[in-house]
Every structure is written in structure tokens, then in C-alpha cells.
């Protein structure tokens, strides 16, 4: 069971399996400002996302693909659009995630705290078959990061229910 003091430390969120349009793996660990392929994907999905009438919550997720050795960025879609900007479509498996928010530059802190929470939960275990993901959230039209002085991110840590076969 979850300790009472830890109940609000992590959110348990289920993401649906869906199609995802993605950048492909972009070699290296550089973020968007230095990584040209990621920037090109960012350019496309940002424009595409503006067509979405439903502005509730962000749909883009970024992850590091350790096996392929690079960063990737994907946009979850309910239906595959006719024009994917030349980017590939993949099947996003979805699943259960332990999620916590963090401010600029502290993804590692978020990872560490979620990992500890999952270990101590005694009801969830990490799911090593899926990638950790993160995204900037808020969908804010106002310049909130500038006003607050930092950006907000959610870190998605893939988990399984302990004892349940995947």
C-alpha cells in the first residue's frame, strides 16, 4: 500500500494505445534546440496540433531510446491524418504510467523520486519494456513559463501492476 504521506507524490495515469506520428530516433542526447531532426518534427507537429480543436492537455511525448541511442519525439493521434508531414506513424503501446511534474532541468530528480515511489509502493513495478517519456504541459496561451521563470514538465514512468502478467 501507499504510505499516507506519499499518496499525492505521484499520479497514476493510463495512456491509451494509439497511433503516434514520430520523429524517428535522432542520434545523440541533444535536446530540441541543438537537434535539427527534432526541430523539424517539432515544427511539423506544432503546426498540426493547432488544427486540434480539443486543446485539452498536451499530446506530444519525448523519450530517449537507449537501444537506438537517440532522442525521439512523438505526437499521439486518434486517427492518422492524411498528411503526416513525411514523418512515420508508429503504434504507441500506451499503458500505465507513474507521473510526476518537474521544473526545468530536473528530470533526473523526477525520475529518482518516482522510481523510489514505485519501489516502495509494493503494488507496482517498473516496466522496462517501454520508454520513460516527458513533455512540457500546460497548453498555455499565456507566457506562463516566462512569468513563472521556469517551464513545467511531466515525467512518465512506465509501470506494471505487481504480480500481473503483462
Amino acid at each position, binding site marked *: 500500500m501507499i504510505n499516507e504521506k506519499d499518496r499525492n507524490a505521484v499520479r497514476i495515469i493510463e495512456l*491509451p494505445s494509439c497511433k503516434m506520428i514520430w520523429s524517428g530516433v535522432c542520434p545523440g542526447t541533444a535536446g530540441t534546440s541543438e537537434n535539427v531532426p527534432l*526541430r523539424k518534427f517539432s515544427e511539423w507537429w506544432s*503546426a498540426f496540433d493547432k488544427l486540434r*480543436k480539443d486543446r485539452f492537455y498536451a499530446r506530444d511525448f519525448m523519450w530517449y531510446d537507449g537501444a537506438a541511442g537517440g532522442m525521439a519525439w512523438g505526437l499521439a493521434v*486518434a486517427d492518422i491524418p492524411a498528411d503526416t508531414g513525411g514523418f512515420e506513424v508508429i503504434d504507441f503501446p500506451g499503458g500505465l504510467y507513474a507521473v510526476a511534474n518537474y521544473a526545468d532541468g530536473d528530470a533526473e530528480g523526477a525520475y529518482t523520486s518516482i522510481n523510489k515511489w514505485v519501489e516502495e509502493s509494493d503494488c507496482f513495478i517498473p516496466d522496462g519494456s517501454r520508454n520513460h517519456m516527458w513533455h512540457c504541459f500546460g497548453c498555455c496561451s499565456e507566457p506562463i513559463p516566462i512569468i513563472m521563470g521556469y517551464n513545467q514538465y511531466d515525467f512518465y514512468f512506465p509501470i506494471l501492476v505487481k504480480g500481473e502478467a503483462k
Partner: protein
Amino acid sequence: MNTAKKLNFATLPQDYSPSTLPEILKLVKKVKGNTAFIYERMSKPFFMETDRLIIRRFTIEDAEAVLALSLDRMNSSMKNFDHQWPTDLEGCKGAAAYFAGNDTSYAVCLKPSMKLIGYISYNSVNDDGILDLGHVWYTAYQNNNHDTEALSLMTQYAFEKLSVNGVTAGNPLDCEEQIAPLKSIGMEVIETREKAFFVNDADGNPIEFTGCKMLITREQWEAGNPESYSPKNRPEILNMMEDARQIEKLVETISYNGITFEVVERPDVVWVGCLDYASENNTESDSDATLNRYQKYLDVVKQDLINPDWSASLWVNYGCDDKPHGQMFAQETYSAKHDERYETFTQPGGLWIRVRRKKETSLVLFGNESIDAWDYFINKVLENAAEENGYNVNPDVHVRIGYDCHAEYNTSPHTCYAYMSVIENPESYSPKNKPVILEMVSEASVANKPEITAAASTIKAEERNMVRIMELSACKMVTSGPANGEDAFAPGGKLARFHEWFTEYDKQRTDQFYPRNFMWSPPGGGFQWGFAVDEIPADINGLKVIDFPGGLYAVAISVDADGQDHDRVYNGILEWVNNSGCFVLDETDERRSLGNITSPPFVKDIIGYDQMDLYFPIAIKEEPK
């Protein structure tokens, strides 16, 4: 049927957003013939004008006109077959304010009286890029004429500027006058739906009708409007290529010093005319002699010209130290064989940046009124515009082109352009296209604060993760209505009925990302539950629909049904907001604190509780003056 117009565009400055009717109407000008003039703002139409119509954004001053339209509608064939509009002035003030507050609702007015004769809405765009178009029309003008013109223009804009793949509309199948203009612009009925309803009769029974979904695809639109233009071929291209065969494709429009430049993709093109090179490297030829020769041969036929009304000056090898400079006066041709008195030169294909040469543009870019193409090159305006927008001058193509419509020489000023070859700069980034998310993650953007009126943040580093700041979009919500008393959650009660409806409806949602139901305490107390929707569902089981205002919220997770935890989290949010320095609490009758269960239902069996995000409405705190 061909209903497309020739579109001319202008962009309103970002800091100019007229919101009163007199200010907006200052934009009116004379538009003649089969032309429409469109002011855009933030990449959306702000004001459209044809020779007899104005299509503009609403203002709160439109309340009485909205009331008149609404009352007329109540006597129309659409009376019971659509969402109901308020029929009192107070309600219409709210409706006008709502229309004015979004960039999807447009008022259609008749010139010169400016009488409101219709309402058009860009309702939504689905993941396939299909835009849903709605319209409400004054019956006196529901004549397959004014309505057709306005709907066609909005449809044309959607295809050409919003790059949609199709435009759809849902209406009662039997309301001929409602669907006639849609048929006229080429929409076809692709689906009918029996027993649709929006309104109940006096006995509470639904007034049913057969609804139809109409659609026109991009292909159908382009086939029906061959002189309409694809999104890539923007208006500037039209001015130039109106009567010409198209050989180049617009890649993007960019801005430099407020002037519009275009990046186009050109194939290899053969130019035919007179070309002379200097006798030595890095020196110039005698261009006057070349021009004299070119003019002397004007009667000598050039074969298969691409644009017979256009001719050009080409500067070749300028910028090269190891080649003689050359100048050519020529026209584009499809043919490689020409009279031997002519020279030919193949201009390499690839990306080219171009700008229309005009006095006003020259003044902005280099401070005098010269429209001489060479002045555009010598002042490096194309280089600078390219480099500021993610392109470099092509180091392998040393050709500059001044392209002029000589057919317009007698109607000054004639249309003319300057062209230069460019390549994409992979290490650069187009500010125009810089996505919002990149701006958000850019450290520089945080360091270089723009001028904002928000008070300074005092959020401590260790408290940054305590509360999330989120924006919920304004939308429609299907709601239970307020439910008071101990029976609020009783079987058969409002909340139970709502729960029953939305859990079923939610299964139809193709996009299952994150729950969409929110609960709050309405001003009168008790509970109210709402489900955010993109479009109002046809079947809402008698539930009500409200306008959810959206806005900024301070959010934190809590344990559902644990009052103590709820209070602690709630108070924690309030304290965080009050100490933030940059936000203030903003709970009003319209914007209530919300609760939203975020954990999937089965997780409760695992951890023993549901998790609920608490949303507290906030606003940006203004800097003290």
C-alpha cells in the same frame, strides 16, 4: 460550380486588434468584381470583403443584431432543428460576447448598410483535416446568393489558407434553403441520420428530423474551382503568374522587416535572350550594349515562352572572383532551340527567395524608392531576409534575377520581383516557424523577458513542483445541472443520470487521452458535473449544455473522497497561489474550482483510493503601477 474568388490578403499588425464596430468598419474599402480582400490576424481571417459583403469578427455591439437574427430564425424552417439561440437581449448580449471572444465565429454583413444577415462558424477540424462549417442565415437573405457567396469564401479560405482536406456541414436534410448554398459550392450529402434532434416539444418529447452530413473534399473543390489555388500557391504568386503557366512552387512565406518574402522551388529553367560576359574575371560586361542588342532582336521570335509577358535581367557570376561577370536580358522558355542570334542560359533549379519590388518595400528595406532589381541585390535585402529565416545564399549558384512584367509597362507601377538562389540552413531556425514549445524550453526566452504586465514571480525553487499551472480551453460542456441536497448522488438523481450518460458517451471518444469530466460546486451550493465536448452530441439525454469558460488553473493532486486530504491540498494551492507573486485567485460564479479524477478506475482496487486533480481558477497578477 465555380464560386471561388480571387483573394488578396493583408495582415493586421499584431498590436492592432480593433474590437469595436466603428474601428473594424474603418477597414472597409472598395472591392470590385470577382475579388475578395482579406485582413488576417494571427493566421486567421479577421475581416473579409467582397463587392457586396463584409465578413468580420463579432463585437459585443452586435447583441441587438444577434437578437434580430435569432428572432428571425425562430420563424424559419430551422426553428427546431439546431442549437437554440437566446431570444432575449440579455441572452444575446452573452451570445455576442461569446462570438466576439473567439476566432471561429463570423458575422456576415451586407454593404453598405452593414446589416447582419448571417453567421458562419468554423466549428472544428478533425484529425483528418476536415473542417466543420456552420451557418445561420436571415431568412430574407437565404436566397442561394448572398449565403452562397459568403459560405464559398469561407470554404475557399479554409482550403487555401488553413490547408484543410475537406469542408463538411451538418444540417436538416429537408431544409432546402439551408443546404442549397452548400450544394452550390459543391458539397454533396454523404450521410443521413434519422431521428436527430436538438429540441424537445412542450411535452418533453424530442422534435426529430433527418439530419444530413455534407462534404466537399479538396479534390472536389479544386476540380470545381480550377482558377482557385492550392495553399502552397499564395496570392503573391497569383499577381505574378495570373495568366502564366506555373513552373514554380511556393515553399513558404517569410517576413523580414515587416516585408513579405517568398521562398519558391524552381526547376532548371532555360532563359533565352542576349548574354554577354566581361572579358576578365571579376569585372563587369557592357550591359548597355547587351540591352541594345536584346532590344534590337525584339522581333526575332523566341520559341515556346513560359511567360510571354515577363522578361528578366540576369546577373551571372556576381560574387565570384574567379569568373567573368555576365549580364543577360531574357525570357523563360520550354525550348532549347532558338534563333542563332540568341544565347541561352540554364538557371539551376532549387530554392529561390523572391520579393516583390515596390517603392514602399524599397523605402523600408533600403531607404529609397528605387525598384531597380540591382538595388535589392546590392543592399543585400534578400540575403538578410533569407538568413534571418533559416536560409543561406546558395554558394553554388551565382545568379540574380530581376523579373518584370513588361506587359504592364504602360500601367505604372508594373509588377516586378527580385530573385536569388538560396539553400536551407540546417543549423538555423526560422523564427516564423519556431514552435511554441521551443520558445517555452528556450532558456533564452526565459532570460530575455518580453514586456509583460505580470508581477514578478516569487515562487521558491523548492516549491516549483507543488502546483501545476494549466490552461483549460473554453469549450462546451454537457452538464448534470446543479444538484443539491443529500440526494445529489442518489440513484435516478441528476448526477447519477449524468454519470450514466457520460460513461456511455465517453466510450465513443476516439481520443481517449485523459478524462474529460469535471465536478464543481455551483454558486448555489451542492454539486455539478460536466463533460467537455468538442461538439455538442446529438443525444445528450435531456442534459444541458453550458459554455465552459476555460482559463488558467493552479492544479494539484489529492485523494478523492478524503475530506482532510482534500482540504489540505486545496489550502496548499491557495497558499501557493497567494505566495506566487505572479498569480491571483480568480474564482467567480462562472469559473469554479474543479475536481477531475485522473487515475483509471481499476487503480482504486490496487492503491485503495482514486486520485483527483483539484483545479483552482487563477489569473495572472498584474504588475503594480
